[in-house]
């Protein structure tokens, strides 16, 4: 299951609809803290999170997931509408997309990140 986290519900749901139409199982959370309470190391395969969110932003969520042993290896894709390089390589995330982006680019990144994990069969809907 892919977890999409964005306080912009329209963005989260549109990404969700697109990825579902490509065959993925997707869930949506409207905040970092909501996502943190719903993500677990067994069913969640990938987290796609917006950077700028109130309370817990994408980087904080990412750090929290990497710090927890059960979710430490979970691939994380951050997205942001900001041009400012507030997300620099080496921080606790695996990929980054600047909004707006092509749906095809999102799909390629999702496939690439999931291909890097060992159990990529489980997230695809049969």
């Amino acid at each position, binding site marked *: 299951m892919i977890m999409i986290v964005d306080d912009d519900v329209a963005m989260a749901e*549109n*990404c969700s609809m697109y990825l579902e*139409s490509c065959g993925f199982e997707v869930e949506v959370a409207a905040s970092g803290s909501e996502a943190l309470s719903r993500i677990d190391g067994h069913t969640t395969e990938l987290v796609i999170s917006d950077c700028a969110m109130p309370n817990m932003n994408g980087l904080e969520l990412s750090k929290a997931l990497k710090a927890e042993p059960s979710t430490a290896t979970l691939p994380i894709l951050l997205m*942001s*509408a900001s041009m400012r390089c507030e997300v620099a390589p080496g921080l606790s995330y695996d990929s980054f997309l600047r*909004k*707006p982006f092509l749906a095809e680019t999102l799909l390629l990144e999702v496939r690439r990140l999931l291909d890097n994990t060992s159990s990529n069969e489980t997230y695809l809907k049969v």
Partner: protein
Amino acid sequence: MRLSIFILSDLDEILREWEAFASTIVPLKEATRIELRDHAAAVLKVIATDLLTPQGEGARDAKSKGLAPSLALDTAAETHAESRMSSGLNGDQVMAEFRALRASVLRLWTQKEPISSPEEIEDMVRFNEAIDQAQTESMARYSKLLRDAQSMFLAILGHDVRSPLGAVSMGAQVLLHDQTLPSKVLKVGLRIFNSSKRVDEIVRDLLDFSTSHLGDGIPVDPYTVDLSAVCSSVVEEARTFHPDRTIEFAASGDLTGTFDGARLAQAFSNLISNAIQHGFPQTCIQVAISGDAQGIRFEVQNDGEVIPEVKLRALFDPVKSFAIRPPSERTASRVQNLGLGLYVVKEIVKAHEGEISVSSTVETGVKFSVYLPRITPHRRVGEV
């Protein structure tokens, strides 16, 4: 009486005059006495101490130009500028405070007793130089704060526009991905997607234009990149979004080098978009990129109306380009494109220490030519 002695002994009287003047400035009307005096005492004490220190010709010249080295991390004049900006004073009002300070000190000093000795005249000259220095420091800090604030404002504005734009764009792509939808819906979806892409480009060009005008130039982050792939991808994208246009592409030579691939993709894209927008619709657009040991040349050619020489010269400067229009053509309804994209191209090329030129004739059409030398520009990671 030497000026330094006067300043230190009559500091309170000088500050009362400063306070009286500052209270006439609108944003300071309700300010307290401490707020009105702000850093004036510190500025004056620094000047008085400076007057007591021997000074050579070099130091005098530097000070009169506002170039004297500062020993303190923040001078009193710089801190004063920050404080006045917080109180809402504009740059002219901060300058006026220093003018008033200069006038008050010299008037009160000369009222005390007429100046006559060569040392006192020397004091007056040095005092003026010190005020010039303080004024320059203050304005430099004020301008920097203003630039930083504008830069931050633009970054937030860009983020705030792109966020909903991301949702619009993704929504349109969800529609386009569903081929079971009626063709009318898919057509509308494509229009929404293309328009959102155009808005994104305009926002990006506007932000780049604004930030480079704030003095930072366009930031580039060079890395090893194959410009053939970058260019090919830009051409493919243009073909996808403009299926009605013919775009021919040719690549030759060694096209791998140290460049900011993303920024050059933006520059190539802007030039190709320009050719699509201004070229004759039924004609072909030629895109070519070639490389040798010295550098890389990128060219875009389209058939279109000949651009007059006067317009060609201003083509990369949107402000000048706008200014040379007749007044009747300066309304929003007459100006369909400010030409920000070409300005951004020029700045990206400049950041790579390259050159850009344009020619326009009946025989060869309109041709943009970019040359990028194989040297590594200074690494400047993007700020906005």
